[in-house]
């Protein structure tokens, strides 16, 4: 077969391509966007007293090995109403990026959930998004009698705010993606 001879050239061509296809590019790093490293809840007691902050800080992001550092500035006073506000930061950037603004801009897509064990505190939302649903950047915390317990604050991205109970702060049917979840062991005295 005369035309078969030409076929033998093909593997040689292939070898040629093989030799040429070695590109040695240095990859670019993936800097994950919208990273949340820090959440600070500031609790100001109505009628005076010590302002308390609850902070979680995870500088190596969502899949780094280091656990978030929790900081609780002090004990809560019993039977007190606190005006609460939340600040969210990305401290991997310098200066730190304020994610709170972004949440305010897309408030329909975000909601905080507050939970406490041992009935040490109750929460009410004091802000609303464009649809009249709660956000949770501003809230009220009312402590009960003295005791210890855990306060958990969760930020959900794209929760289903119309699902049953979600509006009232029940996380059970919220779905969406968890952006922040932090549990603080607090003492009420």
């Amino acid at each position: 077969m005369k035309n078969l001879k030409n076929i033998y050239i093909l593997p040689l061509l292939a070898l040629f391509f093989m030799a040429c296809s070695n590109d040695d590019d240095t990859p670019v790093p993936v800097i994950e966007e919208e990273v949340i490293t820090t959440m600070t809840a500031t609790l100001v007691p109505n009628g005076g007293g010590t302002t308390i902050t609850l902070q979680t800080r995870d500088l190596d992001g969502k899949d780094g090995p280091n656990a978030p550092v929790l900081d609780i500035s002090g004990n809560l006073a019993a039977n007190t109403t606190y005006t609460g506000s939340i600040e969210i930061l990305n401290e991997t950037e310098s200066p730190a990026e304020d994610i709170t603004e972004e949440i305010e801009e897309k408030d329909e897509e975000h909601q905080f959930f507050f939970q406490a064990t041992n009935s040490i505190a109750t929460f009410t939302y004091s802000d609303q998004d464009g649809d009249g649903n709660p956000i949770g950047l501003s809230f009220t915390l009312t402590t009960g009698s003295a005791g210890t317990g855990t306060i958990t604050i969760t930020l959900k991205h794209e929760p289903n705010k119309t699902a049953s109970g979600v509006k009232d702060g029940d996380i059970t049917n919220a779905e969406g993606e968890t952006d922040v979840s932090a549990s603080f062991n607090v003492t009420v005295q």
Partner: protein
Amino acid sequence: MKDYLLILCYCALNITFAQECDYTFSGEIHDFHDGSPIVNATIYIKNIDKYTTTDLSGKFVMENLCSGEINIVVSHVGCKDKILNVNIQKNTYKTINLEHHFEELHVVEIKGNNPNKVTQTAQETLLKAKTIERYSSLSLGDALKEVSGVSSINTGNTIVKPIINGLHSSRIAIITNGVRLQDQEWGIEHAPNVDLGSVGDISVIKGSNALAYGGGAIGGVVVLNPLKIILKDSLYGKSIVNGQSNGRGFSFNSSLAKTYTKGWYINATTSLKDFGDFKTPNYNLTNTGLNSMGFSLGAGYKTLEKGFNVSYNYLNNEIGILRASHIGNIEDLVNGINDSQPNVIKPFNRDINDPRQEVTHQVFMIDLYKRFKKLGRWELQYDYQNNQRFEFDIRVGDDRDKPALDLNLKTHNITSSIKVDAFENIKYNFGVNGTYQTNFANPDTGVRRLIPDYDKFDLGVFAISNMKLGNTTNLDLGLRYDFSRIDAKKFYLTSRWEERNYDALFPDLVIESLSSQVLTNPVFDYHNMSVSAGISHDFNKKHSVIFNYGFSQRPPNPSELFSDGLHHSAARIELGDLQTDKETSNRFSATYKYKSDHVSLVLEGFYNQINNFIYIVPTGTEQTIRGAFPVWNFQQTNARLLGLDLSANYTHNEHWALNNKSSIIKGRDIKAKQALIEMPSFKSVSALKFSNKKWMLLNTELQSELVLRQNEYPDNNFEAFIPTTGEYVLVDISTPPSTYHLLHFQSDITLNLSKKTTLNVSLNVKNIFNTSYREYLNRLRYFADDLGRNVMLQLKLNY
């Protein structure tokens, strides 16, 4: 006038005959391979309708031939006819070479008792086209479960990875059309990209004994041969349409081939699958649909002495992943495990939403061969594969439509081998192959790469011999050496780099330090040896045995070395280990076969000791700002696998038959003195068959499938804090599901539509009683039951 002409013609003819009619045409017929004489071959002179046969020395004589051209057909049992023209002008002597072994021109193999088998002394099972066609709407992993000792590890019901004697993924080489599949097979949720519509038959070889196909396949080799090419002037093909109730979808595949006696051929296949949400007996499995499209084109020229093949395969799969299996953090996982139903159940839908995979695999292959007289067949092959994998998770915000994983793997391979078959009792196969592979992980996903960019180089050489000791004993010996280098460029989070202690172990690998990440350049070399030795012996027509030993080494794959990060859809942090060393397997096996008129039995036992066995296990949780995530670590241990596979047939008469396939395997972690994770449990499949050739070739089969609960498993459960309840709970990721028993029914008839066209109609019911069950080796068992009843109707047209 007419009469006059006739007389003239008659005279002319007479003159011709009268010329010279006492010539002798003699010669000898030899085997092309080894030059040995062929006894009792027929030599037929077509134009004068005269026969003779060769004697014991392969010689023949034909006397009283007239001068002129004669047209001869030489034939012999098991040979391809040879046609040639000889011009007789004197006494003529001719040596004719005949292809004595009937050769499947395409199959890369050493010849032996069964021409379709790849090996003679390994535990090999052949799946024929008719069996494979039954699975045309399913997957390769489903079809391979026809082989006793083969099971699968699933992610849902559409991502099915074969397990051979307890081993899967990188430990199994899948060879399609002579090309070793390189499709990121390291991932458990990465199904083999194989289009069953373009497959003719499948050889499953347990253990590492098919050394010609590459090293490192310590679990086994699956060889998929393309549809056969028949070398005669013909146009033929088949089409299969399949409709099924579960998934409310269809599959279609079709193949067509045009062939020529001279050796040229061209063929094409195409396949389509379209399924919506599947369902369990009680609920829909939301977002489990599948869309698949594939085609292949092939052409070539084949003769005994030389030939070539070119082929191109394209396969695109879009696979929905159960919506409820997308979990955000450990709390969702706990809820998934504890709830009896998935947390998202929606009405039936055909759309495939996130989470989903979209994988495109392309293979280009060219090979050519030439046969050298009294030596053997030389072959040269080049192949190129391109695998593009997207994994889409449920993402929010601006990243909504971005894939979370975007990997492109390109592989170039060149192989050359020579099969020496000139000697009567011993055959050799020598070969060398080189592979270059490059992986690109697209950073545009916005998610840190789970697998880094890397280049990989492999060079392998092998030598195999197959010796026949008399008519009853075969002896195989094989040696293979592979060099493998992986050269990766990988970013680590500085905190991870330090947590793993890499800053002390591998300080030289860092080539650049960024604010919170380091760029590293790990380059690792591996030298791997493989040895295979086997002997088979037939005591008589009924009893035969095979003993086999395989030594094999496998270098760690990129995922075992480099995995690092949150696997979003699985909500787990997966961590590879740069210190991972190669695995070494020593596998001993023994096979006993019995065959009589009514009973056939194959009993296969093996013992596989794998040192530095690489496996992934949950090792606890890591807290992040988003909550806790389970951590899965790649680790190494010494493992011991011991198993027995049984396949038995009893034929009562021409109508009734019984059949059983059972397998049991024990996997043990010798170092930790506990069971190995993810070992298949005992399985037994029995079938009662009835067939009647008079009733349109009716075949029916009632199948009973029993899978016992896996009672031997390591306890990797751990406790995790659940913020919403404020409690610590046990995360039970270890306990296997219960025993289950399923009944299946299968039936088919064949109608002759015309002389060359047949129609086969088959009805197949899976899980007749709509039994709810979960399978230990299905990764979605935490979230949902397995499939409920599925009624499938298949029409197959052969033309």
